[in-house]
């Protein structure tokens, strides 16, 4: 079986400073992987590099997604190829209705795949069903995208987009931050619904609690830009008990190439 996502010997720098180094990760179809790490360990950099954000310079290594060289693709091409990033800080776009944006995104992706636009009726039907599932009230669909949304509403809305766009790989960047326990549960239920043998997820988080609800197949500990340890779901619990301190690099071993 070919891996859905395969990251090999990746080094990424921002403004000349190395953030990720010797980074390796292979995610197979149907798997859920969690990347856990303290603040500043490179978690969000990983998310942005996957989605293709400018300003994140790949200085070494490869990323293959569904057999394609991901790094040669523009962000919109990555979306069309089936990659989705649920963002930590979703952006406000005044004057653009939430549902209008979502429909435009869906149709852009369909167009890139050579599929016809989704009909207004089908779109509405699906949207209503999925919105209910993640607890996005109808009035939020009509409001300007993320404008004046609470932290929790923004995160639910990201998951709604995820459910509507049905990507092959969903990257969740700190989706749990800013969510109360009930919201966390609803969001997790939504994500779990999307789990399938063709699809993979990469859950990036600081805390273990999200993993109570989205149970990962593999857990990776990211500290100072490198994966220090990988294991099963029990690794998350171990982390919760011991903290990240145990994974800090020893002084003899410089953590990054930055100097």
């Amino acid at each position, binding site marked *: 079986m070919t891996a859905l996502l395969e990251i090999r010997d990746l080094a990424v720098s921002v403004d000349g400073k190395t953030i990720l180094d010797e980074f390796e990760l292979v995610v197979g179809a149907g798997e859920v992987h969690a990347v856990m790490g303290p603040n500043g360990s490179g978690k969000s950099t990983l998310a942005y590099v996957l989605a293709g954000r400018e300003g994140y310079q790949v200085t070494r290594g490869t990323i293959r997604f569904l057999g394609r060289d991901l790094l040669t693709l523009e962000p919109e091409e990555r979306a069309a190829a089936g990659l989705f990033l649920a963002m930590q800080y979703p*952006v406000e776009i005044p004057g*653009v209705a939430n549902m209008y944006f979502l429909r435009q995104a869906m149709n852009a992706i369909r167009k890139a795949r050579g599929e016809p636009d989704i009909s207004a009726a089908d779109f509405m039907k699906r949207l209503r069903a999925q919105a209910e599932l993640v607890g996005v009230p109808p009035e939020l669909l009509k409001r300007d995208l993320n404008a004046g949304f609470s932290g929790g509403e923004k995160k639910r809305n990201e998951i709604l987009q995820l459910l509507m766009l049905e990507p092959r790989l969903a990257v969740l960047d700190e989706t749990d931050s800013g969510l109360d326990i009930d919201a966390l549960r609803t969001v997790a239920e939504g994500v779990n619904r999307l789990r399938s043998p063709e699809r993979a997820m990469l859950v990036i988080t600081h805390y273990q609690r999200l993993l109570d609800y989205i149970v990962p197949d593999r857990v990776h500990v990211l500290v100072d830009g490198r994966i220090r340890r990988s294991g099963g779901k029990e690794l998350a619990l171990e982390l919760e008990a011991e903290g990240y301190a145990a994974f800090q690099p020893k002084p003899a071993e410089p953590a990054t190439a930055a100097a």
Partner: protein
Amino acid sequence: MATALDTVREYTGHEYKYGWVTDIESEVAPKGLDEATIRMISAKKDEPAWLTDWRLEAYRRWLTMEEPRWQKVTYPPIDYQAISYYAAPKQKERPKSLDEIDPEIRKTYDKLGIPIREQEVLAGVAVDYVFDSVSVATTFKNKLKELGVVFCSISEAVQEHPELVRRYLGSVVPQGDNFFAALNSAVFTDGSFVYVPKGVRCPMELSTYFRINAAETGQFERTLIIADSGSYVSYLEGCTAPQRDENQLHAAVVELIALDDAEIKYSTVQNWYPGDAEGRGGIYNFVTKRGACRGRNSKISWTQVETGSAITWKYPSCILQGDNSVGEFYSVAVTNNHQQADTGTKMIHIGKNTRSRIVAKGISAGRSDSTYRGLVRVLKSAEGARNHTQCDSMLIGDRCGAHTVPYIEVRNPTAKCEHEATTSKISDDQLFYCRSRGISEEDAVALVVNGFCREVMDELPMEFAVEARKLLAISLEGSVG
């Protein structure tokens, strides 16, 4: 690594899509302006003596006036003797039916996406087609006639409704109002005329499509719209011109008159050729537009989407004379490359409880410069007047400019005037967010800009809102991808 800002810069390289020239035999007057030219124009149009005299009076006043220089735009001096003041497609007489229109002209409008037909695309919209200086066709005339609505070229109106023209022409924008209005009054060749009788709600949008074709000509059209007591009319104008290296002058005058309880909604989608990326060529759009709310409870609403012209310089205004009258101004002005725009409105409150609302959105890209200039004047008589002004500027890239120059003069202590202004940029975050959801960079810019302009776009008649949205996207389109 390129930032989003660099890629946004590429948007300055868009091309004008309406820049071709129609190959048609035209009758063009020799260049230059003197009393003989004016008499010639008047004679060509078989005008009554009072109108010839009116034009000559305007011309004499124009000679004594100086071209204004206070606006925040720069352009080389215009040689008024190097312009031809009359250009008309050669045809024996005005076509009697739509079938008789010169096929080349018909093709031009087809190519512009506004076919001269009474069905299909513009169903429910009556259109007057002005080609260079003259009106070539007006659709749905008979249907309007049944209701008593007059919609024709102003030349026709002079012949068929002289009493209305004589009564209202120059009553809102007098001959000597300003330099360009005086020039227009002297040489105007055609334009649209609308009269909506008492109590009639005009059942369809009325629209004029202006096309400059001939080289080295100016377009000086004159539009006069009268809404009699209790009537309603919605009117839209659209404009394009071929791509040429030299600048062309467009100095129009629009006068609106709303009597008691009448309402006029006037929408403009202006897409004159803006010049190339280096700033060569393009239309100088120096236009005087003014509406008079003469009657009680009357309302005039200006909506404009300005994407074209090398220089746009105009202030569609409302004189709120009647008690309880309402003036509105909704504007989107997009400038790109080397385009300059100094535009805004004037709201003159005279009557009691008059209200005005101004929403102006400026979008600057490339090396362009955009200024909102607006006057809110509340006279002593305007007890209880209200104004709300909102000016928002959006900058794309870091080489453009946006300026807001509000003038507020209040002479009545019961008046309330509010002014809000914001400046923002399209952020890299917004573009990345859209792209990560599959939306291309170009579409993302269009999406964000359209969102920014939504309040104004919502004011456009439905048929044209879609078109205007596309136009916005085209104006900011680049060669990305």
